[in-house]
């Protein structure tokens, strides 16, 4: 039920996947909107507070996700050899870009040595600060990597629909229903 198998994704992986998807799309929309707010907007302080809090929780979840992925069996990829190769490359790139966005975001707020407050509950300390022009450069990386992530995520979704509608295989169903972990193909 919770664990992955070579046949499908367990509930833990499925939940992490969809929570991450929701958080990533929400953070992108929120981030885009809040960077355009004027100084006098009532959301000027609050929107970044939400963005940073959710972002840091997503960073924690993503680290957990990679650990889980490494200690669990990976479901066998479906499709032709070329498709499987492209899928592995695409997923690898997704992980890479997700962490690039998360870490660059962390490096903006911690550039002067201040930690990041997560929902006023706890503080993530600054580990790397005072690099030359850190906040601005990290901000640039954050912006472009976030766009790259949106484009990759769109490609990821389109590929899933292609497998579901055109190839008629279980790729998408496996990411929704944990029962595939037990069913034999």
């Amino acid at each position, binding site marked *: 039920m919770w664990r992955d198998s070579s046949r499908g994704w367990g509930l833990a992986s499925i939940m992490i996947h969809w929570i991450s998807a929701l958080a990533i799309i929400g953070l992108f929309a929120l981030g885009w909107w809040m960077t355009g707010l004027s100084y006098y907007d009532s959301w000027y302080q609050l929107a970044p507070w939400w963005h940073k809090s959710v972002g840091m929780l997503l960073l924690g979840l993503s680290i957990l996700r990679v650990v889980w992925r490494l200690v669990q069996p990976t479901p066998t990829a479906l499709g032709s050899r070329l498709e499987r190769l492209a899928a592995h490359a695409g997923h690898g790139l997704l992980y890479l870009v997700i962490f690039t966005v998360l870490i660059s975001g962390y490096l903006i*707020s911690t*550039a002067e040595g201040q930690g990041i407050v997560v929902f006023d509950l706890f503080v993530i300390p600054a580990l790397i600060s005072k690099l030359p022009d850190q*906040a601005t450069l990290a901000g640039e990386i954050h912006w472009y990597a976030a766009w790259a992530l949106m484009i990759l995520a769109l490609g990821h979704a389109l590929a899933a629909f292609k497998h579901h509608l055109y190839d008629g295989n279980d790729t998408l169903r496996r990411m929704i229903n944990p029962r595939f972990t037990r069913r034999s193909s």
Partner: protein
Amino acid sequence: MFKKTAIAALTAAALLPLSQAQAAEYVIDSDNQHAFIQFKISHLGYSYILGTFDDFTGQFTYDPQNLEAASVKINVDVTSLDTSHAERDKHILSGDFLEAQEYPEASFVSTGFEPTGEGQGKLTGDLTLHGVTQPITMQVEHIGGGEDPWGGYRQGFEGSTTLELADYDIDMSKFPPVMHELELYVVFEGVRQ
């Protein structure tokens, strides 16, 4: 006796212009950060934001016998701005204010000095900030000087002035009038070369 005195006087007279021409050169002690550039600007009229530019270099010439010849030159790395809050620094350095990617360097080159009292004076010069050069006048004061404990010889000064940000094409029109200007304070020690 007379001859000796005459020679001494002549020698002194001959050396005098030379000593004047050789005003001592000092390099600002940036390495050990005995030098600060700070600014203070109103926040909404309620309090102040204090900030510094951490990275800058400079040199000056100083001759207590010929103060009018004093000169100073300072180059500032604008991206080293620090107001102790990363997002605010990023905002101040962005296109909304200092456009640091376009104008990463600020500088001050003195054009004249006029003593106004014991250890005090008015330093005039060209300040370049945000790609705009404007003549400014700074009230400066000689704090002290002499041998330091490590074999060097130092002189220290401080100075301050008020800048109208609009003069440097920095648009503050969205903010209350009290935020349209800032106070600049500079203090440094130079080590004689």
